[in-house]
C-alpha cells in the first residue's frame, strides 16, 4: 500500500513536472509593448530573415516572392512540415496578429492561443533577434499582398503529433545565447546578428543531434541534407577557403569564386541576401571568417 502511494505520488509529481516543463511560455506582452514598427526597416529584416524562402509559394519568382501564401515542404527526420500562409489575410494568413503575437511565434515558438510551433520554423534563431526588428517586420509584412491559400497539414507521425512535447524540446534547445561570444567589432556584431539570429544559417549548416537540437560545438560545420542527397557544406574557415570579398559577392550575385552559380536551396537564400546592403553582406563575410574552424568530417 505504501509502495502504491509512493508510486501514485511520483506519477502525480511526474505529471506536474511534465506539465510545468512543457507549458507554452511566451516572451511576455511587455517585451513588445510600446514598440512602433517602421516598414522600411522591416523590409531589411524580411530579407535578412529569409521569410520568402519558405513562405512564398513553391517556385514563385519576382514579385510573387512577396506573396506569403506558404506551401513549401520541409523534409526532416521527424516528418514533412509545410510552411503556412503568413500573408496579411485575416483568415487564411496572419493579418489578425499583433506585434506581440508575431514576437511570441518568432521568439518563443508559440502561436496565438498558446500552442507550441514546430521548430521547422526557426524560432531557435529568431529568439536572438531584437524586439524592435520584430515590430519593424510586422509593419512591413502588413504591406504585402494577401493570399487566401489554405494551410496544408504537417505530415508527422506519433509521437511528434503531440505538440506539448515541444515544451520539453524547447527547455533543452531554445537558447538565446550567442555562439560566437566575442564579437569584438561592430561589423562582427552585425554579422553575428545576421547569421545567428535573422539569417538562421545554422539551422541547415550546423549538424543536429538525435533529438533534432543543433550541435553548437560544430557550429556551421556542415550537416546531412534532410532533403536527401548530398551534404550541406561546412562554411567555417575549416571548410570554406573563400575570401571575405568572395563570400560577399556570392551573397550578392550568386557567383562562386569559380563563377559558377549555385542552384538548390542556396539559390533561394541568395535571392534574399541580394536584397541586403553591401555593408550587411560584408558583415556576414567577416563573421564567417571569425567563427571557430570545424574540420570537415570525412565524407
Amino acid at each position, binding site marked *: 500500500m505504501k509502495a502504491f502511494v509512493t508510486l501514485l505520488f511520483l506519477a502525480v509529481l511526474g505529471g506536474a513536472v511534465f506539465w510545468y516543463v512543457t507549458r507554452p511560455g511566451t516572451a511576455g506582452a511587455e517585451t513588445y509593448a510600446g514598440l512602433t514598427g517602421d516598414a522600411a526597416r522591416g523590409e531589411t529584416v524580411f530579407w535578412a530573415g529569409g521569410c520568402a524562402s519558405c513562405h512564398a509559394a513553391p517556385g514563385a519568382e519576382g514579385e510573387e516572392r512577396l506573396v506569403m501564401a506558404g506551401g513549401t515542404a520541409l523534409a526532416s527526420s521527424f516528418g514533412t512540415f509545410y510552411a503556412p500562409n503568413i500573408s496579411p489575410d485575416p483568415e487564411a494568413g496572419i493579418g489578425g496578429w499583433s506585434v506581440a503575437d508575431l514576437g511570441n511565434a518568432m521568439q518563443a515558438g508559440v502561436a496565438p492561443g498558446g500552442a507550441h510551433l514546430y521548430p521547422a520554423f526557426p524560432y531557435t534563431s529568431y529568439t536572438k533577434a531584437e524586439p524592435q526588428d520584430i515590430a519593424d517586420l510586422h509593419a512591413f509584412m502588413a504591406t504585402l499582398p494577401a493570399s487566401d491559400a489554405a494551410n496544408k497539414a504537417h505530415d508527422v507521425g506519433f509521437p511528434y503529433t503531440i505538440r506539448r512535447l515541444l515544451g520539453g524540446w524547447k527547455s533543452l534547445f531554445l537558447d538565446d545565447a550567442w555562439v560566437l561570444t566575442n564579437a569584438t567589432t561592430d561589423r562582427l556584431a552585425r554579422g553575428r546578428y545576421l547569421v545567428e539570429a535573422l539569417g538562421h544559417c545554422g539551422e541547415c549548416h550546423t549538424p543536429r543531434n538525435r533529438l533534432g537540437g543543433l550541435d553548437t560545438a560544430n557550429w556551421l560545420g556542415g550537416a546531412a541534407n534532410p532533403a536527401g542527397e548530398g551534404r550541406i557544406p561546412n562554411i567555417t574557415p575549416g571548410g570554406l577557403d573563400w575570401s571575405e570579398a568572395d563570400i560577399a*559577392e556570392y551573397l550578392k*550575385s550568386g557567383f562562386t569564386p569559380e563563377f559558377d552559380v549555385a542552384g538548390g536551396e542556396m*539559390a533561394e537564400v541568395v535571392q534574399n541576401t541580394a536584397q541586403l546592403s553591401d555593408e550587411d553582406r560584408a558583415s556576414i563575410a567577416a563573421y564567417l571568417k571569425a567563427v571557430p574552424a570545424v574540420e570537415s568530417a570525412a565524407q
Partner: protein
Amino acid sequence: MKKLFLATAALATLGMTSAAIGQDQKNPAVEARQSLMHLYAFNLGTLGAMAKGEMEYDAEAAQAAAGNLAKLASVNQMAMWPEGTDNASIEGTAALPAIWEDGSDIGDKVQALEEATAALADTAGDGVEAIQAGMGAVGGACGACHKAYRASNN
C-alpha cells in the same frame, strides 16, 4: 535452351557495352554546352575580379569581357541540348529532364540571360559600380536556370 542462353549472353554483353559507352565516351553536345559554360565563367572571372576589387578597373578589359559574355549568351544552343542528354539518361551531366518536359520555360530563362548580359555589355565601360550592379542581374539569370534545371550538388 542453348538458344535462350545465347540470347541472354548477347543481351548481357550488349548491356555492358552500352554501360561502358555511357561512362567512357563523352557526348559531344554535352561537351559543347559545358564548354560554353566555361567560356561564360572565364569572362565573368575578369568582371568579378574587378567587382570584388581584386583587379584594378580597366574599362577596355571590362568592355571586352562583358561584350564576349553577351555574344556567348546569344549563341544558338539548339544543337547542344538534344533529347536524351539529361542526367537520368546519361552520365556526365547535371541537366535535369525537366528541360525537355512540357511546360519547360528554358527558352525564357535563356532569354533572361541574354538580356542581362546585353545590359551589362552596355554599361561595363562606365565604371566599376556599373559592373557591380550588372553582375547581380547576370547571376540572378544563371541561378534561376540552375535552380530549375540543374541537379544540385550541394
